[in-house]
């Protein structure tokens, strides 16, 4: 365990997030850029899964950061910056769908579901430590419902806690727990 990879979350811990956020709200461009650089990868990862399109994800993340900057003075204080940004991006994406900028492919999208795709097999196959079970489990993720996939994604791919996931997906804490429990149970049954 000693060679445990440092995740970016650990690096980010060093930043005093409330200070970063307050500086950003005061219009300090360094803070704006820092937030952007720290969270772009994760936001793009999430956005491109929601949209199934990298170019649309890019555009909507631009919109997100422009919205954040122009409204910075009226934005609330935050508890978890990553969770807040994910919530904000999700609402930008939902607005985009609602505005009819794109045909809704998935009929249940507007009821809170996302057209969510998880495919980690390629990366997994590339890794030396791959074990059959892992590959199998990850492939099985595709059989989950969109909501389950999104909850699993936010919990494990993005390391967000149940409370944050609830905020992002607009669900109660217990519903998030249940959703993840149910998803894991159905994965387990496949094993």
């Amino acid at each position, binding site marked *: *365990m000693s060679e*445990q*990879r*440092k*995740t*970016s*979350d*650990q690096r980010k811990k*060093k*930043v005093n997030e409330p200070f970063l956020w307050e*500086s950003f709200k*005061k*219009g*300090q*461009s*360094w*803070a704006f*850029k820092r937030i*952007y*650089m720290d969270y*772009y*990868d*994760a936001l*793009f*990862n999430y956005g491109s899964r929601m949209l199934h399109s990298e170019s649309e994800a*890019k555009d909507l*993340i*631009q919109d997100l*950061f*422009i919205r954040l*900057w*122009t409204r910075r003075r009226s934005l609330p204080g935050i508890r978890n910056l990553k969770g807040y940004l994910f919530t904000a991006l999700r609402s930008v994406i939902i607005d985009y769908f609602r505005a009819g900028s794109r045909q809704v492919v998935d009929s249940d999208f507007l009821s809170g579901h996302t057209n969510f795709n998880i495919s*980690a097999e390629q*990366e*997994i196959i590339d*890794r030396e*430590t*791959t*074990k059959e*079970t*892992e590959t199998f*489990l*990850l492939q099985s993720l595709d059989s989950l419902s969109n909501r389950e996939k999104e909850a699993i*994604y936010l*919990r*494990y*791919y*993005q*390391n967000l*806690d*149940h409370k944050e996931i609830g905020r992002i997906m607009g669900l109660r804490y217990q519903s998030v727990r249940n959703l*993840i*429990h149910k998803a*894991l*149970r159905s*994965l*387990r049954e496949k*094993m």
Partner: protein
Amino acid sequence: MNNSIDHYRITDFLEDSGFVAWVNGNDPETSATWESWMKSGPPNLDQAEQAIGLLRAMRQEGEREVPFSKEDEFAKILHRIMHRELISKDYGSTSLRKWLRVAAVIILLLVSGTGYLLIRSGFSPGRTLTSHEITVPKGSRTQITLEDGSTVWLNAESTLKYPSRFARSVRQVELTGEAYFTVTKSPDRPFVVLTSDVRIKVLGTSFNVKAYPNEDIIETTLESGLVNIEKIRAEKGESGKIILKPRQKLVLYKSTLNAEITEVKDKAGTAPVAAEGREPQEVRKPSLYSNYETELATSWKDGKLIFRGESLDLLTARLEKSYNVNIRIADPELNQKTYTGTFENETIEQALEALCLASDIKFTIEKNDITIYK
């Protein structure tokens, strides 16, 4: 540790928030507990190991780096924001001071030949004589994206003049003060920075130029690529042309027209503020940005103030510019000490306190006037 953990299967581990936090390194407190449990040879060790592998694989996938330039995307965002702010009412309704703090820039779009101020968004097609002039006040800095995609970080008390569309054969801008350029490659169209005394010509590169009118030196520091520097007032019989290589700095003395080339010192890391002749003291925690490699000359664009062996009066002159304050040194002998260190997005109070900790100085602040004494 609870015995029931010995019966966990992969998915149980995944549902255990403590376990997930441990694997993701979020919870150093419980890590010893989990590690000793792993070492105790539990019957379901393989399940735990698979859960760890799975969690790591998912995290790795979730934070995979994007396959394109985040910087370029950021430049596009800034570009869109600038044009939006120019045309929004926000510009007129906010108090000037607030605006300065907020956008860090006053933008005057001078439409040559017409004599009135015109605020517009976007660039008009075809030939146009529109030129822009951006002046950054004391205490601020800003980033500008030019029409060809090149970006310019403009430091405090600096002015950049640039056309809304560059000419076909050359991309020319005029600079007073300090700026950091990242120039988009365009082999047929050199990029030229015109300062009071030198003309700096590049094809595509990153470099910093410091040419304040009230200082005798013009400094050009190159990060990558090659630049061609030409003295505007060359001595007779002298070509006046100088080629600068990466990690070199050119200093031109305006009074004598002498030029010196020096190698740029290595990374200006995170040295705490230290006064010479004493043990360097750790006055504050190491910088948050310590892994961001930033050169001395270009650090200002990231909100850092790095100084190496600078005397107090030079240091305070830089503080005055960055923080928009007036600093008076009451005891001239304080200038004999030199200082090395980094300030990063600190308030002026924090910066001065760091200095006080490093050497025996005191200070008073009254509005924007600061006095430093023994």
